[in-house]
């Protein structure tokens, strides 16, 4: 009888454990989408308007001033793109963590290797300015009122993240797409470093000293 009771309890514990794992996975707020549907050729053709601010142009390494630039023009090994919507409550909730992620890239010494930019889906310049002001964003964000940019980047909900890596031959490849926010900036950066195969930066300690 005691053995039967223990078996039942073990089965129940197993079911509960599975439920907890499934629940925790969902509660992380994102489900990785492992389908890099964009070919390197299509990815290299994704174009954006030149940022008006010199600071954003400098951050992205855009020296040749044209009306449009492509993702391939960005001087970085890894490009992280957030598709957001100023009206989206999830994007608002995620904004502080995304901003922390931007600062963490800098703090850990990856500022020259990993670049972050945002695209405001169906948002005007005024609307993304409202979003930027509300959350104190310092990384480049682009208005996209006509979906000209996000139309080139398949996605479903917002926020949605593209993690793109420059290959040794200079082409670009989508490493991962992700819907929803992320739990912490540290976890997100660590995950990116891992999937991009980037070594921990040995100068991070020095870089930390004078960074926020």
């Amino acid at each position, binding site marked *: 009888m005691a053995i039967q*009771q223990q078996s039942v309890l073990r089965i129940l514990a197993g079911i509960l454990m599975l439920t907890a794992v499934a629940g925790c996975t969902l509660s992380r707020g994102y489900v990785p989408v492992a389908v890099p549907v964009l070919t390197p050729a299509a990815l290299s053709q994704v174009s954006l308007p030149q940022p008006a601010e010199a600071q954003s142009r400098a951050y992205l390494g855009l020296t040749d001033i044209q009306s449009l630039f492509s993702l391939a023009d960005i001087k970085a090994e890894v490009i992280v793109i957030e598709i957001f919507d100023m009206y989206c*409550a*999830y994007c608002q909730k995620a904004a502080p963590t995304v901003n922390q992620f931007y600062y963490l890239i800098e703090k850990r010494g990856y500022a020259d290797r990993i670049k972050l930019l945002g695209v405001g889906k169906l948002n*005007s310049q*005024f609307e993304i300015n409202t979003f930027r*002001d509300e959350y104190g964003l310092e990384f480049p964000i682009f208005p996209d009122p006509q979906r000209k940019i996000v139309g080139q980047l398949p996605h479903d909900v917002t926020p949605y993240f593209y993690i793109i890596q420059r290959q040794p031959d200079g082409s670009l490849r989508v490493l991962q797409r992700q819907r929803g926010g992320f739990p912490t900036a540290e976890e997100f950066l660590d995950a990116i470093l891992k999937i991009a195969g980037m070594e921990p930066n040995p100068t991070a300690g020095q870089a930390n000293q004078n960074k926020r």
Partner: protein
Amino acid sequence: MRIMRYAFVMMVIAGCALVAAVNALAEDWHNNIFSPGQLQPIDSVLKVKIGDPAPEFTLRALDGGTVSLSDFRGKKNVVISFVPAAWTPVCSGQWPGYNIAQKQFVKYDAVLLGITVDNIPTLYSWTKNMGKLWFPVLSDFWPHGKVAQSFGVLRSDGTTERALFVIDKQGIIRYIDVHDINERPILDDLIAALSRLSSGS
């Protein structure tokens, strides 16, 4: 003793599962939005025009009180945002945007009143996923759509148009945007209307 240990472990796991499931449901708001498909852009006839006095109303608010348009007479400009229905796509992504634009409304000495024809429990459940809203959310549920009807924005299916009205401190309508129900009006136009009102032009 062993049974007790198992029971304890199971209780801990059950607690984790419950918390995780609740979190998962909260994060799953996207999936709770009903998609009505493409609708007729406008399905009503306006009963007011720019320059008219706005119809007076008193409606139940989400916080349990009531709000009357006359509460703001001589004190604040008023923006009324009618959205068609709770738990539908464009509506669910309209007020959260206004929620982070509070400074713009304050700048032009305006309050925002969000109105739908949904009942209070529905509005409570829907809006709590938008974060803490700084503006009153009002229910035009009963008599159903009476206020929307008075402005001429009640659609034939009992929902309202996606409509914005700007009313000055004297209670006069200064801006009307009865928008295509399938699209979200951009914030630029509304704030420009408030700016014009402020500058007297």
